[in-house]
């Protein structure tokens, strides 16, 4: 079963708008990561937030983590057409040593 569940499943916005995607998970984590996947390509790592952090920024990306609610959000500000992709959260869970568990993803379309 998936650890992370993204919401919404699909999101369509205009260029220049902000895009927010949410991820909920079920068990205690060591870290949570976000990845982007362009159509037909592999996933690309965007950002990692550790369980003792609440917010992290990287360029136009802002990630928040609320461990009490077992949820995270990814905000992309001033979106561009090139941001069109699927976005996945992945959790590194306590006790599972080496592996990440991925969610089902949010498909983002940024329209010109």
């Amino acid at each position, binding site marked *: 079963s998936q650890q992370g569940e993204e919401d919404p499943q699909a999101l369509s916005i205009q260029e220049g708008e902000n895009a927010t995607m949410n991820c909920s998970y079920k068990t205690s984590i060591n*870290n949570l990561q976000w990845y982007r996947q362009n159509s037909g390509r592999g996933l690309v*790592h965007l950002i990692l937030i550790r369980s003792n952090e609440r917010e992290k920024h990287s360029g136009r990306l802002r990630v928040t983590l609320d461990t009490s609610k077992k949820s995270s959000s990814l905000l992309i500000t001033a979106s561009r057409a090139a941001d069109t992709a699927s976005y996945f959260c992945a959790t*590194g869970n306590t006790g599972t040593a080496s592996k990440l*568990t991925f969610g089902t993803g949010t498909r983002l379309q940024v329209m010109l």
Partner: protein
Amino acid sequence: DAGITQSPRHKVTETGTPVTLRCHQTENHRYMYWYRQDPGHGLRLIHYSYGVKDTDKGEVSDGYSVSRSKTEDFLLTLESATSSQTSVYFCAISDRKQGAGYGYTFGSGTRLTVV
């Protein structure tokens, strides 16, 4: 993707035949992973390796086996391919547990069709 190569990129095979997919890395990373990606399921872990000859099962390991005889190569074998194994297969590498450093680096994927 730089440092990680999957082969073949596309393969069509018949039900019941064995199939081996290869993941090759030049990063000298300790951890290697095989995932499959299917619509509605996201990425699901098949097997992973935490060192040469050290492997473990993921959540969807039935019907798959792996081998890692060298740091740079991680092979995924479908012993007897079935139509339910039609999927896109991704290999990923990491230098730390759970991608704790810079996350996973993914290959470009192998699209496998079992007819």
